[in-house]
Structure formats: structure tokens, C-alpha cells
């Protein structure tokens, strides 16, 4: 009997010991990483395979993809000379170990094949080198001369898969191209691809043109022109090359901008020295007045959901940023950070408003949340102004005037304030506007 009890006691003891041993194990090691090292992702992009070795399409497409991703600052395309392996067949998983040796974390393999019907077929696969899996595989058909757009679309697809964010490489920039002596500048409306390729001039430069703005849903531009000496808003259709006047207002019109669905244009009309914000419905051409303040209200821009409008006004004494409902109600000031603040632009993502801050004689680009909090200045130029968002709300372009009349340029910068870069334009350029992703 006593033996039995002792056995039971021992059993309980063992059980207790077992529980005691388990307890610390379940409190397994826990590490809370809050600090990182922001660095571009090393990605290997060999030339795409072609049917005949040396065909240019394979090199060209891979070259543009490398340039796109490298320019984003989020990727670091590796030098093809360092590759240990040539991806001969893109339908076979690559030798992942060979790519780990050169520290690639992602790999793009692709091929560009001419089809019997004269079209170009481009396939690519994105591989996760450490996870040893395919992350993405897509195929495109196009006319061979469109290879550059296919390359941009591939860049967009890779960017989106890695960052979770839509890309912006298959887009265009409209801007004012400036040439000639400072006293007699010739200003022309011009368009380039996002990487600076394919520049096209849309107007001859006989008339002053200002503030071009893209329709967010189509390849259509609204801009201001002084044809006949009167500033009016015109629409330019990139697809057809047609240009039309938005309406023959009896007064001056400025700073046009499309609504997110492209059906309306919000703008400034000046009447008897008083500028207010009006909206025009493009289908009915009906015009509605939104502000009635005696101060100058201008530079309106819709929120991406179309429910609100941000604009600048000097109703408080100096130029500041205000937000109102789309019907003109509930006006409130959001910029309090000092200096003058103007040219607000709502991010297509909705989370930020970019603006130009003037302090003393310097103009800088900043962002703030729609409630005015979290103000951050991104650039540190002498005269940076007129921000425009990439369609993914991740990158900004702006005009930069160099000190001492040394010209004007377009620059881009990441919304985090990193990766400031000059945009390649033919000659001097100002007042950029970023297109939506091309449909």
C-alpha cells in the first residue's frame, strides 16, 4: 500500500517536473525588430532570350527593365557580367544557389520571340531566390515597335509584386518645354515617357501655355493657353491630337484640374479682381461656383474619392492650404507649419497632400496628411515648386528653377524623401504633370 502511494507520488512529481520543463519552452525566444537598413533589393535581370542569339529585342527589353527598376531606388539591378548562369530555358526553375552566390534576392528571366503573324511575344518570370519559388509569370503580345512599352509594363508588374504597390513606369509626363533667350522664352507643351524617352511637342510655341494637367482616366490634358491674349482652359486629346476650348468664359481662367473620374474640371475664374473656384461638368458644360470669399482662392485639386477639394487661399492674410467638401461646404484650413503654402495636390493614394512651401526666398516641396498633421519637407532646392504625383502615390515630380537663371528642370523624389533624381527632358522644362497608367 505504501509502495503504491509512493509510486503515485512519484508519478505526480514526474508530471510536475514535465510541466515545469514545458513552461520555459513555450516562452520561446522572442525578437522584436524595429530598426532596419533601408536598401534597394538586389535583382538579377539577364538579357531576355531570343530565337536567334543576338536579336536586339531581348537586350533592349531587359535593358529598359533594368533602368526602370534601378531608377525607382527600390531595386538594385546587378551587373550582368557577374552572372554565373545564363537562363537558357525560362520554363525551367533556375539554379537558385548560383544566384545566391552573387547576392541576388530576385531574378527575372524572360524571352522575346517573333511570332509567325509578325507580332512579338514576350514572356517573363520573377523568381524568389531564397524562397526558391516563382513569384510571377506573365506573357505579352505586341507589335514589335512597342517593345519599350512592354518593358515598362514588365517593370510595373515586378514593382507591384515586390512592393505591393502599383508601378508607374508605363506612364508619361506632360510639361512645359522652354527654349530661347530668357527675355523671349518659347514655351511649348511637350510629352515624354516616364524614363524621358519619346519626347513629343504638342504645340508650336506661338502662344503661352501653362499648367498642363492629365485626366486621371484617359490620355487627355487640360491646360491654360493665351491664344488671342486671353488665358483660357483647353483640352488636348493625346489619342486624336484634337484640341478644344473648355468654354468661352467672359473672364480669366486658371489652374484647371480634372476630377478623379475625369467627368469634371475644377478651376479658378477671376472676376473683377476676385478669384474663386468653379467646377465644370464636361458632359453638360454646366459651371458651378464653389467659393465666394473675397480673397484669392486657387489651385484646386480633388481627393481621390472625389468627396473633397484641397486648394490654396490667402483669406487668412497669407497663402495657405484649405480643404472643403466637393460642394464647397465645410471649408477648413489645414496648413499651419509656417511660411506660405500653396499648390496643394492630393495623392492618388489619398494618404498625403503634396504642396510647395515658401519660406523667405526658398521654395521647397513637402507633404502633409489631409488633416494637416505630419508635415515633412522633402526637397532642399532653391526654387522647387508645383509637385505632381505618380499614379501610385509613391513618387513626386516637381519643377526646379536653378539659381541665377541657369535654367529650369524637372526632378523626381520618393515620398520618403529619398532617391532625388533629375528627369531627362529635351532642354529646359517646367510644370510637370504625371499621367495615369496608360490603358
Amino acid at each position, binding site marked *: 500500500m505504501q509502495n503504491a502511494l509512493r509510486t503515485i507520488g512519484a508519478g505526480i512529481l514526474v508530471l510536475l517536473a514535465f510541466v515545469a520543463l514545458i513552461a520555459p519552452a513555450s516562452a520561446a*525566444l522572442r525578437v522584436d525588430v524595429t530598426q532596419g537598413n533601408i536598401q534597394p533589393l538586389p535583382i538579377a535581370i539577364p538579357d531576355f532570350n531570343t530565337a536567334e542569339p543576338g536579336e536586339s529585342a531581348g537586350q533592349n527589353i531587359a535593358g529598359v527593365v533594368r533602368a526602370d527598376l534601378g531608377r525607382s531606388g527600390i531595386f538594385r539591378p546587378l551587373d550582368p557580367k557577374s552572372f554565373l548562369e545564363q537562363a537558357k530555358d525560362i520554363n525551367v526553375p533556375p539554379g537558385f544557389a548560383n544566384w545566391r552566390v552573387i547576392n541576388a534576392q530576385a531574378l527575372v528571366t524572360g524571352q522575346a520571340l517573333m511570332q509567325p503573324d509578325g507580332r512579338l511575344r514576350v514572356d517573363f518570370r520573377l523568381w524568389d531566390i531564397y524562397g526558391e519559388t516563382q513569384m510571377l509569370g506573365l506573357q505579352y503580345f505586341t507589335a514589335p515597335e*512597342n517593345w519599350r512599352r512592354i518593358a515598362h509594363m514588365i517593370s510595373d508588374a515586378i514593382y507591384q509584386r515586390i512592393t505591393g504597390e502599383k508601378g508607374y513606369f508605363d506612364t508619361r509626363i506632360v510639361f512645359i518645354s522652354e527654349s530661347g533667350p530668357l527675355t523671349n522664352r518659347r514655351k511649348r507643351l511637350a510629352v515624354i515617357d516616364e524614363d524621358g524617352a519619346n519626347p*513629343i511637342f504638342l504645340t508650336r510655341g506661338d502662344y503661352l501655355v501653362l499648367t498642363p494637367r492629365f485626366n486621371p482616366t484617359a490620355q487627355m490634358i487640360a491646360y491654360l493657353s493665351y491664344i488671342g491674349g486671353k488665358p483660357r482652359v483647353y483640352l488636348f486629346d493625346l489619342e486624336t491630337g484634337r484640341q478644344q476650348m473648355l468654354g468661352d468664359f467672359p473672364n480669366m481662367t486658371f489652374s484647371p484640374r480634372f476630377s478623379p473620374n475625369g467627368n469634371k474640371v475644377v478651376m479658378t475664374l477671376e472676376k473683377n479682381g476676385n478669384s474663386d473656384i468653379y467646377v465644370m461638368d464636361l458632359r453638360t458644360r454646366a459651371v458651378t461656383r464653389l467659393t465666394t470669399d473675397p480673397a484669392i482662392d486657387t489651385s484646386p485639386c480633388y481627393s481621390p474619392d472625389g468627396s473633397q477639394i484641397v486648394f490654396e487661399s490667402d483669406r487668412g492674410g497669407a497663402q495657405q492650404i484649405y480643404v472643403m467638401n466637393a460642394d464647397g461646404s465645410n471649408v477648413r484650413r489645414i496648413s499651419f507649419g509656417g511660411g506660405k503654402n500653396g499648390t496643394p495636390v492630393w495623392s492618388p493614394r489619398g494618404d498625403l497632400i503634396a504642396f510647395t512651401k515658401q519660406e523667405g526666398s526658398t521654395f521647397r516641396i513637402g507633404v502633409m496628411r489631409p488633416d494637416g498633421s505630419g508635415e515633412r519637407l522633402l526637397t532642399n532646392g532653391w526654387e522647387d515648386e508645383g509637385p505632381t504625383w505618380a499614379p501610385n502615390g509613391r513618387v513626386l515630380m516637381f519643377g526646379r528653377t536653378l539659381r541665377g537663371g541657369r535654367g529650369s528642370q524637372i526632378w523626381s523624389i520618393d515620398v520618403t524623401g529619398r532617391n532625388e533624381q533629375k528627369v531627362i527632358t529635351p532642354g529646359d522644362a517646367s510644370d510637370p504633370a504625371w499621367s495615369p497608367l496608360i490603358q
Partner: protein
Amino acid sequence: MGVVGSLALHGAIIAATLFTFSHRLDIIDQSSPVVPVDLVSLSAKTNVTATVRPAPRIEPQVSPAPPSPAPAPVPVQAPPPQPESEATPPRDAAEAIEKPPTAVPKARPQQAMKDENKKFDVDNVLALLNKVAPAASRTNARTAERTVRGIGDQNAMTADLQALLLSEIRACWSPPVGAPHPEDLVVDFDVFLNPDGSVARPPQLLAQSSSSSGDPYFRAAAEAARRAIYTCAPYKLPGDRYSQWREIGDFRFDPRQMMGD
């Protein structure tokens, strides 16, 4: 008496079960007194787990059939026609500007050199990947000496391990900056390490962090963390305390402090 006998036998059976169980684990665990128990519920719905699956799953695609699972049709006549008004001068400019896209590797002559590098590097990686290198990783025993022994609290004993891991992973993790709502991008992984500090098996995303696992931003954040876990290996941790860092039950990556500068 029969009752007592029955109790005794039950006790013996329980005891025997426990002993054999822990014994079996001891062998696996190389004499660790700690019985690892995985009570982690794994995320069922995240995309990340899918990408973690071993490569063989892709092999079927070796077939010569068109590769793409999701062909993206493309407007064949993509670039819109240029406005007639003034297309000519700019086209010239276009050609001037449009330089041959980036460096084309014309390194054929250097092939021999490349091959040498290749062999050299391959050897290197084999050595790196070779899991029989525990001796090397044991060199970092500095922290073991200043461990507060006798306190008996697991946290006190592993605080230095946490610091070591943090100092290593910090350099490898490139957080998903610039994404909206960083508070939704905190990811937790369960990581098992080999004695040589390499990653023992694909890190598993913990369910607690996968509330928004369908979100592409979240997937990107989780993949960035997973890349960090892999690229930082092998971890240099005191080899004699392997039982304490064999599993990092919650490897949490929190990008909130890294956003917006």
C-alpha cells in the same frame, strides 16, 4: 488491493510515457533539457506560406507549353498616335535622346576569367551552405560568459541572445517604407535554426500577424521580412546555448518606426 495495483500500474504507465517521450526528444535535441512544443497556429490564408513551399511544386511547368498562368493581354497598338500638329521635330529629338538602353554585356572575351570566378564562388557557396560547420559559429561565446546564471528566469537568460539577433538582423532587413498604414504591416515569424546558425526550415508566418494577409502591401512586408531572415543567416550565436535559440518563436518585424524617414 486491486485498486492500489491499478493505480500503481497507471502511474507507472504515465511515468513510462513521459520518460520515453522526453528521451526521444533528447536524442533529436542533442541533450537539451527543454522539450520544444510547437503550439503555434499557422496562418492558413496568407500568400506567403504559398511561396514558401519547396521548389518541386514548380517543376511541372517544365513542359514546353506557354508558361504564363496569367497572360496579360496587351493593347497591340499601344502608344496612342501622336498628334499631327507638330510631331516631326520632337521625333528627331526622340531619336537623339533614346540611347541604347543601358549596358549590354559584351563580356565575351572575359569568359575565361568569369569561369574562374564561377568555380571559385561555387566552392564558396558550397562551403557556406554546408551545414557541417558548427565549430565556426561557436566562436562567438563572449555573451555566454556574462549571462546571469542562477536567476532562472528565461527572459533574463535570453536577453543577450535577443540583442545579438537584433544586431545581426538590423543590417539585413529593408523595411517596406513608403507603404500606407505601417501599423498593419507588422509581421511575426516562427523561425527554426540549425546548430550552425543557418535557417532550418522555411520560416512560418504566425497567425497573429496575418489579419490582413490578402493585402498586397502585407504580402510585400512579410516577404521582405522573410528575405531578411534568410539573407542574415548563418546567425552567429553561442553554440553551447543552442537549446535557447533553436527556435525563435516570435521573430517580429515592426516597420512603424522606420516610416517616413
